[in-house]
């Protein structure tokens, strides 16, 4: 009689057991880091006609939650925006998330996505647990590469030292948070880890560096030898950046056909602003450019002018960045600043210096209240920062 009712018992007991088994297999094989807001999904027809490297790069970006498939309705709008261009293949669109602001360099985002794809979540968790056990036994963190960006604690320490030196050059004296516990934790935190990569790129990058150079730098400068035909790391990072840029371009095209003020062709951006020139009794450094901040970068908005003949003829050799709303906390020597904050400052100064063709070494950030008149000038002209030529 018991045997007769065995099917009923099996029907109830077997499926949960099988779920436990298959579920744990799926967890072990899990590769996606929820870096973006939501895992992004779209229609299930999936064009396999793009070449393999691009497909892999797309998969990496998708797994990291950086791109999503366009919906059918968005596809239609894209086709309307650029007839003939988007008729074939899957259209990928960028995913916006607050965490994307942890990094400013697209190469840093690509490096992070690729590293976390190559080292699945389960492995990274296991590494972390093993390192914590070793730390408990020996009192030292093992020097392995950790976290979604795969950075070694020693490398993180080096990056911190470099970043502090660079910040000191800019005029800031605040140290970066370098306590060993905090550092180890920050290697595993997506935002902090990507900020570290971003800092290392911001500190070391030279003019004209592309994603490939950045990727090589993340490897420690030594290319990993591969067999011919095998996908190479720097190539892959480059491809991920290309995929991200293409997604962004598609988004721009999509926004062009959106209804509302942005879809109106007669709409030509914000109204022109009047630049107030400083008076004759001006004692602070001569303001030259009005900068606007977009997505963490400084762009030249307007030029102060016309400048007096003797000022305009002097070639630009060094500059002072006067921000209209400076962050007082950054100037406190006693409070350490976080990784992502340091990354943002470095990136802002990089773009500001680049806007006038200078290197970051020729730039200095003014302490709050150092040039009150320039700060006031920036505010009356709606500038986020003013670039002045230093004495």
């Amino acid at each position, binding site marked *: *009689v018991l045997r007769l009712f065995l*099917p009923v*018992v*099996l*029907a*109830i007991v077997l499926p*949960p057991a099988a779920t436990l088994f298959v*579920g744990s297999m799926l967890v072990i094989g899990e590769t996606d880091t929820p870096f973006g807001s939501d895992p992004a*999904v779209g229609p299930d027809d*999936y064009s396999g006609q793009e070449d393999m490297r691009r497909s892999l790069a797309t998969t990496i970006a998708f797994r990291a939650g950086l791109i999503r498939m366009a919906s059918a309705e968005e596809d239609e709008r894209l086709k309307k925006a650029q007839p003939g261009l988007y008729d074939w293949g899957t259209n990928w669109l960028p995913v916006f998330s607050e965490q994307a602001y942890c990094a400013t360099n697209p190469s840093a985002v690509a490096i992070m996505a690729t590293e976390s794809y190559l080292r699945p979540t389960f492995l990274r968790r296991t590494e972390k647990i093993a390192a914590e056990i070793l730390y408990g036994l020996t009192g030292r963190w093992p020097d392995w590469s950790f976290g979604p960006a795969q950075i070694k604690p020693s490398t993180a320490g080096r990056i911190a030292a470099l970043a502090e030196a660079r910040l000191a050059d800019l005029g800031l004296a605040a140290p970066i948070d370098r306590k060993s516990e905090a550092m180890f934790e920050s290697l595993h935190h997506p935002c902090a880890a990507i900020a570290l990569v971003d800092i290392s790129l911001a500190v070391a990058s030279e003019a004209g560096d592309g994603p490939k150079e950045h990727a090589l730098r993340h490897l420690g400068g030594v290319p990993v030898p591969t067999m011919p035909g095998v996908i190479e790391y720097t190539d892959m990072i480059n491809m991920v950046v290309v995929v991200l840029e293409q997604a962004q371009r598609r988004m721009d095209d999509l926004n062009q056909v959106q209804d509302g003020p942005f879809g109106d062709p007669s709409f030509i951006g914000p109204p022109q602003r009047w630049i107030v020139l400083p008076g004759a009794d001006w004692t602070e450094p001569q303001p030259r450019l009005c900068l606007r901040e977009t997505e963490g970068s400084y762009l030249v908005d307007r030029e102060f002018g016309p400048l007096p003949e003797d000022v305009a003829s002097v070639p630009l050799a060094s500059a002072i960045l006067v921000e209209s709303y400076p962050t007082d906390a950054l100037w406190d020597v006693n409070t350490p600043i976080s990784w992502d904050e340091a990354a943002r400052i470095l990136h802002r100064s990089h773009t500001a210096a680049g806007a006038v063709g200078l290197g970051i070494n020729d730039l200095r950030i003014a302490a709050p209240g150092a040039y009150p008149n320039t700060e006031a000038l920036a505010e009356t002209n709606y500038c986020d920062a003013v670039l002045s030529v230093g004495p």
Partner: protein
Amino acid sequence: MPSIHPLFLIVALLTYLTAMRMGSLFLPDRLYFSFSAFLFDTRDLEKTSAVAFKLLVPYATSCLLMAAALGWERVRPVPQPQRLRSEGPVTLAFAACFAAILMAWPYILLWDLLIAPELSGRRIPFLLAYMFYFAATALVALAGANTALAVIEKGWSSGVVDEAGKFSLSVVAGNPFAKPIVELIGSAIAASLAALVAQPA
């Protein structure tokens, strides 16, 4: 413990895959059951009949396969005539379960690519629902094979009461139809649990 008949397994697997695919092609849309229908479709009555239809396909297929195998055996005598009787039902159950797994496998593996974004967080509940569905398919196929065996081999040979005219479980257990009926009940329980797990949040 009966083992699995290899040749019968291959034939059964191909037949199940064809039958399930045909079922999804020829059934009217409102009767076609899919896992997303559990969530998106709110027509409860049709949902129940859709699940019934979905499970009817393996039941009928295994009934026919078992009958065909027994008929084949009668036409062409095989060296071990008892083997198909003991191994047939288990082989059919295994084949049906495997066919169902094969057809749902892309969804299990590529869940985050294929499922609607608002449901992507419910991977484990759905995995559980799939497993209940696989169990239901296996049991319904087992029931089908045992029904065919009971009808062809034994007929209505015993009832549900003993010599004294009293209801007796041991006599019920000896009834050839008791086995498929219990298996059908088990299948129904598994299918209901699948529906319960996959209910819209």
